[in-house]
């Protein structure tokens, strides 16, 4: 057991080190772009994981929060010249509040009724923003180009800064989730996922904790919205509230494995580049064959590895553990 833990730890440390250092040597802007997307979606996947993986409320409408967040900071910046970092925080807070308010009615729903309600929410938000003149309606908002630098949350010459900001976000969320997993919050979330009646009988206020979860998840997702807005310096309803953002987030989390911290990171780190590779080799033909492969891939995962990549990892771990034990037993004999 200990040995396995130690190897995991070493592997993790290597992973962190690699994630920090290797990008420094990547000069190709397009590869940097992929890296940025990987960290962004890893954070989004973790945010999804809080409600989807821990509390067990499957959301297919995260784009609603993502879009709201992107608009909060962009609007503040365009209209009042508010620094994007303040906008970033404001986006987190306002989106969390929004998630809370939406959650009041929606968390009453269970299972697929909840899932479909989130789809509906995403679509409604998109239409509302498409018609909201104040925030530019369908035209969206352009963020003016400013001086590049950390203060302005804009970088022009390289994308690595975006990557590292994303990495820091990911680091913070991982620390938060590690803490959460070991605290009452995490236990209560899981209890609600496992059995709502038992959770109630144990004195857990289900509604309150679901609302907490949805607010946290929405807040983080909203901050990611600001991140993408600063990255592309442009927000538009069709772009920021896109249903496919919601689907991709859920897919990444499920692909990686839900209910644990590593899953969505693995999911993002593998699924995004893989789908890029299929595209790279076959996408320019315009025949859709890359997406065919992508779709088939998801089906195969669901059929043959329904626990996600973490399921594979766990199997391997269990096997090594067994081997270690066997080896030890052998040594003792």
């Amino acid at each position: 057991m200990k040995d396995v833990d130690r190897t995991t730890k070493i592997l993790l440390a290597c992973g962190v080190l690699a994630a920090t250092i290797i990008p420094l040597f990547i000069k190709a802007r397009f590869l940097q772009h992929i890296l940025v997307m990987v960290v962004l979606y890893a954070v989004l996947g973790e945010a999804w994981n809080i409600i989807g993986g821990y509390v067990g409320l499957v959301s297919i409408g995260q784009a609603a929060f993502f879009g709201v967040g992107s608009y909060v900071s962009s609007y503040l910046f365009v209209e009042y010249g508010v620094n994007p970092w303040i906008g970033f925080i404001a986006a987190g807070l306002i989106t969390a509040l929004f998630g809370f308010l939406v959650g009041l009615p929606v968390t009453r729903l269970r299972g697929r009724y909840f899932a479909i309600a989130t789809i509906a929410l995403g679509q409604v938000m998109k239409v509302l923003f498409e018609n909201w003149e104040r925030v530019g309606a369908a035209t969206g908002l352009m963020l003016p180009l400013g001086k590049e630098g950390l203060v302005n949350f804009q970088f022009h010459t390289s994308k690595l800064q975006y990557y590292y900001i994303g990495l820091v976000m990911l680091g913070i969320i991982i620390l938060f989730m590690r803490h959460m997993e070991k605290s009452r919050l995490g236990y209560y979330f899981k209890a609600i996922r496992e059995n709502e009646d038992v959770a109630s009988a144990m004195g857990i206020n289900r509604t309150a904790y679901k609302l907490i979860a949805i607010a946290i998840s929405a807040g983080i997702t909203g901050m990611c919205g600001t991140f993408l807005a600063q990255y592309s310096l442009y927000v538009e309803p069709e772009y920021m509230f896109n249903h496919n953002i919601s689907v991709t987030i859920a897919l990444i989390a499920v692909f990686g494995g839900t209910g644990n911290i590593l899953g969505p990171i693995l999911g993002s780190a593998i699924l995004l580049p893989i789908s890029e590779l299929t595209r790279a080799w076959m996408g320019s033909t315009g025949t859709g064959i890359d997406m065919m492969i992508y779709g088939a891939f998801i089906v195969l995962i669901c059929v043959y590895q329904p626990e996600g990549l973490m399921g594979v990892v766990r199997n391997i771990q269990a096997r090594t553990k067994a081997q270690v034990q066997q080896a030890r037993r052998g040594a003792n004999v």
Partner: protein
Amino acid sequence: MSSHAKLVATGVTKRFGGLTALNEVSFTVGSGEILALIGPNGAGKTTLFNCLTGFLKVDGGTVEYNGLNITNWAPNRICGLGVSRTFQVVQVLQGMTVLENVMVGAYLRHPRTAPARESAIAALERVGMLDRADALAVNLTLPEKKRLEVAMSLATEPKVLMLDESMAGLTPTEAAEASQMIRSLRDEGLALIVVEHVMEAIMPIADRVIVLDSGTKIAEGSPAEVVSNPRVISAYLGDKYAKHVIN
């Protein structure tokens, strides 16, 4: 010694459509007392539990705890006051370990993890399941799950504990251990309401017995009084007779 606790039900009534599942059931239970709730299948015992703990809304009557009207409160609030229950069809958090299950209960009184863990371990020890602490709940045997459920309830540090058929399926030795535990809980000042189908196990330890039949309280008294009550005998005999016919 903890403060005195008292749960009073007055005229609790519950209907499902046209069927009256509970008809004006009243009783009182206080600290240091074991109240046994017996009755044939479908008598409304579990429904009564659900009504007392907020899982079902009552259609009439009141439930009071230490003078506080808790009728139709949310289950978690009732639990928070110190009224805890187990389920007839065993319900545990399948995907979590035994210790984690109990910690979920313990967090109610100990928001921080370290004390919650200690309290959970104590509860597990109490039901004799400490050796299974790292097992996944889903892998437990049925009697183990029942014991786990009791440990979870205990971990919420209740003043009133309601056990729904916690001894069903136990071997005689295990049942004896369970009885011993229930008795010691009473001695610590808990109020216990115990639903049990196995009369042999519960009668010796009960201080008072309530008999339900078709949603109505037909008898209340000491075990000896109840057993000799003609209405009780007919209800049970009728039940048994009916069973014979089916089998």
